[in-house]
């Protein structure tokens, strides 16, 4: 069943939803990355909640004009306008008053959403009927998706992606260093607004599939996921698009394969599964990689300290050190050094003495800064520099020649 869904064999509606969700996921992932890099991820929360009054007003206007209140383009235009108003309010609160951005976000999202709910109840009492579809915008409803809706989502998504492609460089610059961007003469404030505008476009496009509460997840989670896998912003953008698209596709497929699996939440949960996998298994920034790195470091410290202790004839009591040395074949079970162990210990002690000379010498200041107790001195100094240091150390002393 799931396989049928993944290969788009489950009928017309399921296919439309899968394609729409994939496109939405890609554009949300790509756009959300810039928001995330700008450290303003939760702005999307305010924008998405601020769409609700617009949807309601558009519905009322459409009904008043004698049309079908559920006309998707009309509702989307309404939601875009009110989201834009919300965005401007938020911007104004942050720039012109003493409120911090988080308070401005919270104020806009709660007030706009509250007002939207007032309008929703007004619509319910208007008694014009056919308003049932409006609650669908809260959590998305894909059951009745039409060809025209899918086309709108595809066009909106493609347009957003094209715009991102055009202004990706200034957006990246502003995200990483707004002061430098301003010094270069870029209109930082307007670029920020453009970025928010793109987020708004994605939000509006996504209303139909995942709804206004969960679109936030599609904007944030793929970007955070992608960030684990790369330090280069272009790659993060591409990976976020990929993660979002895959989550949309797989999520839509899963939700089509069984009853009672609403599309929006499933897409979010699939996306979160990607996030969890990345959090633990990403090669550089993942938790597993960090644990392995830590264990390797711990091992090196213990072996080094153990060797120094051996060289100075001290007994080792630390169980982990003993175990590591024994496993490396450097000591016997009773804690006495093997021949290799003695040789390595002697070298460790000699290296330590060499470092001591290096660190005492002003001429080696840059090299001395690299000392961390673990680095092999051969990796930072040349053969003849080491010979020079060895000459300073000299041979065994206090022994008659």
């Amino acid at each position: 069943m799931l396989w049928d869904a993944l290969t788009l064999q489950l009928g017309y509606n399921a296919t439309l939803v899968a394609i729409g969700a994939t496109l939405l996921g890609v554009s949300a992932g790509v756009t959300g990355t810039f928001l995330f890099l700008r450290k303003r991820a939760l702005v999307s929360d305010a924008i998405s909640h601020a769409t609700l009054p617009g949807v309601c007003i558009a519905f009322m206007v459409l009904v008043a004009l004698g049309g079908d209140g559920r006309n998707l383009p009309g509702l989307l235009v309404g939601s875009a306008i009110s989201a834009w108003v919300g965005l401007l309010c938020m911007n104004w609160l942050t720039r012109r008053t003493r409120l911090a951005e988080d308070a401005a976000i919270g104020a806009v999202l709660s007030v706009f959403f509250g007002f939207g709910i007032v309008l929703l109840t007004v619509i319910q009492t208007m008694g014009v009927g056919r308003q049932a579809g409006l609650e669908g915008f809260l959590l998305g409803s894909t059951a009745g998706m039409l060809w025209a809706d899918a086309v709108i989502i595809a066009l909106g998504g493609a347009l957003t992606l094209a715009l991102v492609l055009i202004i990706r460089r200034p957006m990246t610059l502003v995200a990483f260093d707004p002061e430098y961007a301003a010094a270069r003469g870029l209109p930082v404030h307007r670029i920020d607004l453009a970025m928010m505008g793109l987020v708004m476009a994605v939000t509006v496009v996504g209303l139909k599939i995942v709804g206004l509460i969960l679109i936030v997840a599609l904007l944030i989670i793929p970007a955070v996921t992608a960030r684990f896998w790369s330090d280069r912003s272009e790659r993060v953008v591409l990976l976020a698009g990929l993660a979002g698209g895959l989550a949309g596709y797989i999520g839509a497929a899963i939700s089509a394969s069984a009853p009672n699996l609403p599309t929006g939440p499933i897409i979010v949960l699939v996306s979160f599964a990607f996030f969890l996998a990345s959090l633990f298994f990403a090669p550089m920034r993942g938790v597993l990689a960090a644990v392995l790195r830590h264990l390797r470091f711990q091992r090196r410290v213990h072996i080094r300290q153990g060797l120094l202790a051996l060289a100075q004839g001290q007994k080792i009591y630390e169980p982990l050190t003993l175990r590591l040395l024994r496993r490396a074949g450097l000591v016997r079970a009773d804690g006495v050094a093997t021949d290799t162990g003695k040789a390595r210990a002697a070298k460790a002690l000699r290296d330590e003495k060499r470092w001591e000379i290096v660190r005492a010498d002003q001429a080696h200041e840059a090299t001395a800064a690299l000392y961390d107790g673990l680095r092999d001195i051969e990796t930072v100094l040349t053969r003849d520099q080491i010979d020079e240091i060895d000459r300073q150390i000299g041979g065994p002393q206090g022994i008659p020649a």
Partner: protein
Amino acid sequence: MSGEEFVPLSLTPLLIGTCAAIACALPGNFLVLRKQALIGDAISHVVLPGIVVAFLLTGAISTWPMMLGAAGAAVLAVVLIEAIRRLGQIEPGAAMGVVFTTMFAAGVLLLEQTDTSTVHLDVEHALYGNLESLIWLDATGWSSLLDAQALAGLPPELPRIALTLVGVTLFTWLFWRPLKISTFDEGFARTIGIRTGFLGMALVITAAIAAVAAFDAVGSIIVIAMFICPPAAARMLTNRLEAQIGWSVVIAITSAVTGYVLAGYGPLWLGAADAVSAAGMIATMSGLILALAAMFGPCRTRVGVQTSA
């Protein structure tokens, strides 16, 4: 309006709304100053999965398991946010966004998967509550306030939210000095021996309790609005914390009362037949007050920033 009509139908919702507004606004003052305002947003989203899980475990709509479930979910969310922030080295906003959207999605999914058609449990209810339905059927007029038998029929939400309000007030009063110091200067607070980490956690938990109790009565949208709008508006009116808290309480009460009255009677004045959502109207009113404060408040700009900048 006569007492016979007002007391049973409007008095209790009005009181519950006001108590909820104050209980959220008090901790909200500190959250706004600490730039943690969106904690309220996160908590009110994760309450849904908590309530659904509690319903699945007990199989009934009963208050205490649900409150416990909601509180558990709130604490879980705070812990998860902190864990993801530290493990993944992600900025707090994004970590919060990941956690609360996922938990909310899980809540919606659970709700769809279980058969809740027989009970009154759905997403819309969770979002905007049903303040209007918390009526006091046993009351006949003002005299019922002294009638023990009628008082026993009060909606249980009222004593619960009143108790929460008392708790929140006590917390604020008892920890006033450490809260104030650590909010404005965390480093100094630590040097004089205040355990700021512990205090910060206590503040978040207090906010979560207020959110859960208010949520039970009035839905999550008021919770977010009341955490942020009254304190933010009060912040524009004064530079002193004591005055700010006083103002925020006044604003919270004003929004609750005007919001409720406008929602209940406003449409009737305009000639419409039915009332609109009180929760939404209260949030809208608090937003209007915030807008007024942001435009005309005497302390609305940052110190040292020119308004023309």
